[in-house]
């Protein structure tokens, strides 16, 4: 019974704190996306103009971990299969945060445009086989300075 109480407490704490932090993070993401809106970003490999420009590699990376509530819901979902909805918002935040950090670096170098943008993820495994501590989301691309 005590195990169940601890479990329930962790779920409640995970949910409440996780919700608050997520809402705060999304607010910050939206504000900064407005602020960095003038730095354009493309997936194409070649720059839109062939003017001689200096090219720099820029990157933004973020490491995220799920809260207890998200993990429990995802585990339960894993029994029956389907969309891991609690992880969707987590990875959405990670992706957008990584882009913002990449753009921040680009702006510091005076670039207005990043081309050939790519994403990579790396899982940080836990001690138990098959478990996960967190995920790194890395965004990188070629900043055009000119």
């Amino acid at each position: 019974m005590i195990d169940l109480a601890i479990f329930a407490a962790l779920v409640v704490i995970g949910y409440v704190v996780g919700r608050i932090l997520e809402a705060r993070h999304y607010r910050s993401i939206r504000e900064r996306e407005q602020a960095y809106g003038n730095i354009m970003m493309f997936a194409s490999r070649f720059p839109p103009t062939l003017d001689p420009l200096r090219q720099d590699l820029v990157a933004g990376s973020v490491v995220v971990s799920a809260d207890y509530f998200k993990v429990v819901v995802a585990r339960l979902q894993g029994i029956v299969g389907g969309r891991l909805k609690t992880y969707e918002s987590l990875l959405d935040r990670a992706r957008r945060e990584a882009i913002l950090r990449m753009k921040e670096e680009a702006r510091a170098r005076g670039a207005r445009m990043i081309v050939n943008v790519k994403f990579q993820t790396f899982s940080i495994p836990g001690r138990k086989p098959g478990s996960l501590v967190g995920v790194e989301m890395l965004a990188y691309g070629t900043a055009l300075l000119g």
Partner: protein
Amino acid sequence: MTEYSNPQIPDGINVSRTHPLADFARLLGGIVVVVGVVVIALALLAGHLARYVPFESERSIAERFVGSLAEPGPKPVADYLDALTRRIAAAHDLPPGMTITVHYVPGDTVNAFATLGGHVAIYEGLMRKMPNENALAMVISHEIAHVKLRHPITSMGRGIVVGVALAGISAAAGSDVVGQVLGPAGLLTMMSFSRDQERDADAKALDALVKVYGHAGGAADTFRTLRDAFAGKPRPPEFFSTHPLDVDRVAAIETTVTEQGWAATGELVPYPAEVTAALAAAEKKAESE
């Protein structure tokens, strides 16, 4: 010249709008229901099959742990319990080969139980609390009814099967989280089973009591006394308790007595004088220690 732009991606494209709590509730509810159905099915099956275990096998399982029960009490009390148990067991029409062994357990604990192999334990504390022989006979009769209905072996069979099933499921799901959710779901199911068993045992016990004494007097006293014994102590709500609330049991007894047309009251037999004396001596001895 191509135009380039980076419009702001609207929110909610990559993220589901379902409330996470609604998701959680749906998943948890669904899984608990499925596990509950599986556990109930397994428990019913195991309980059904356990009844076919021969009584001799049950007795040989019991031999391994029943040694701890065998503590000789004061002689008059032990003899009296033996004789009373034999009389009640005779009224139960036990199937051939089924034997009842009664054990007297010293101490203040107010309790009695039946276990594998027809072993029945009656605690000293319970004997002191019961107002007369009829009330004690109802308790013994109730425990004998458990043995006759094969409840101990049924519970053990259920316990083993459900335990193995839950361990298997949580191992297969590969996480302690799942086990923590599933364990209690199985436990609640088990408890409601034993409550049905108590009701069945009460009915059988009453029948035998009337055969022995010619009336049902004292039966309701048993539960009233138990209720008073626990009065003031916090008791768990009925759902979590393995025994139905005593109020319900008193009502059930009264209904059965009326339905069967039995005499509700009659002459109540007191404990023999030497038994009362032995119990009092035991109590005094315990106090002085």
